[in-house]
């Protein structure tokens, strides 16, 4: 190695220079992030809408189209897009325009994170007719059976909601409002049940107060 040479002390960069560097970096970063967001937003929204539509068709057998609705001033209103923070419910319609039932979103804390799901409900029969998990970070191989195990999902094909849904140990199902929990994934199974019960507590009274199709007022005439 060479003999150490005296190093001229570099001038300390001024505070202005430091702030300017960070400000510029932040500004560029902001530009890039906003551009990426705007570019990907249509694709992301389209994915979400498509997933929702596919889910509605899955949880409401017979439904081919959906309409988003919100609960305002005591009745259900069809909307194009809900306002931020507003809870929505989806009406599922058959090919002939008849209302098949409602697809209701629900969520509850699971083992790992919040589980979000969509379930189909037919008011006349007071039954859940289908369920689909929308978001889950449950453990692969255990909790993820809530969407991977066909037998578990089949629990929700014709499930009575009165007085409320209960999860029982696998194989011990006796009443129509009970479902078989997944062995080794009790918390995840119970979370699914809790999500539906909570959403029922919110929406069933609202649905009973508003009689069928007639009072669904449209915000716009444009179909979804």
């Amino acid at each position, binding site marked *: 190695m060479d003999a150490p040479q005296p190093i001229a002390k570099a001038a300390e960069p001024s505070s202005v220079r430091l702030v300017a560097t960070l400000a510029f970096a932040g500004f560029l970063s902001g530009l890039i992030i906003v551009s990426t967001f705007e570019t990907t937003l249509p694709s992301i929204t389209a994915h979400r809408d498509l*997933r929702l539509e596919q889910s509605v068709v899955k949880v409401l057998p017979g439904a081919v189209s959906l309409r988003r609705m919100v609960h305002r001033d005591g009745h259900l209103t069809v909307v194009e897009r809900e306002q931020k923070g507003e809870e929505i419910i989806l009406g599922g319609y058959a090919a002939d325009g008849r209302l098949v039932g409602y697809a209701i979103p629900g969520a509850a804390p699971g083992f790992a994170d919040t589980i979000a799901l969509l379930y189909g409900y037919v008011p006349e029969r007071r039954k859940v007719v289908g369920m689909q998990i929308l978001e889950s*970070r449950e453990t692969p191989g*255990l909790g993820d059976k809530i969407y991977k195990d066909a037998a578990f999902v089949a629990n929700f094909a014709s499930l009575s909601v009165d007085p409320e849904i209960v999860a029982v140990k696998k194989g011990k199902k006796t009443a129509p409002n009970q479902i078989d929990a997944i062995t080794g994934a009790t918390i995840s199974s119970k979370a699914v049940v809790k999500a539906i019960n909570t959403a029922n507590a919110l929406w069933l009274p609202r649905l009973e107060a508003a009689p069928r199709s007639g009072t669904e007022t449209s915000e716009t005439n444009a179909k979804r």
Partner: protein
Amino acid sequence: MLKTKPDAYQEFLKGLWRENPVFVQVLGMCPTLAVTNSAENALVMGAATLFVLVASSGLVSALQRWIPKQVRISTFIIIIATFVTVIDFSLEALVPRLHKELGPFIPLIVVNCIIMGRQEAFAARNPVPLALLDAFGMSIGFFFALLALGSVREILGVGSLFGVNLFGPHFEPWVIMILPPGGFLTLGLLLLFFNWIKERKERLVRRLDAMEAEAR
């Protein structure tokens, strides 16, 4: 030993074995343990980290002359976070299912010590081509480490690999392997194995050196 000029090929190779970020430097443990409960998750996480590390190293190395050292860490973080955000949105737009599976661990790439470590230790003081090679090497080393862990945990814990069932319906999965303790167990055993191989190699080299010295 004389310090030789950095050999570009070595800069790339070191990340794979000699200075493997997971098994030698023991960095980036959080995603290593959390996201390796299946081989597919490990793969996507490795790929995302590769993008961020290579892009960040390239940019940091290109801009090193203009970043005052007093604010270098903050600037590195801004650069890294920007790339992570870009890949987060991109994954959500292109592969929404995988994006959902990885969830919060994509934003956590920002605080993956490997990325920040390479900026500070290498990219900020080396030319762009070397910085890129280093980043690639480290990323691939990380990628293989994740894949090794993910595969072992998925095979033992679920009985499948990349979702393909391997052992048939009568296999009793060793469930703990896909839970956090399984991550620690697997990592520990792989670290043990890695260090054993390293030590054997070093012993061999020492013996060869001794023989050479005797022969003179």
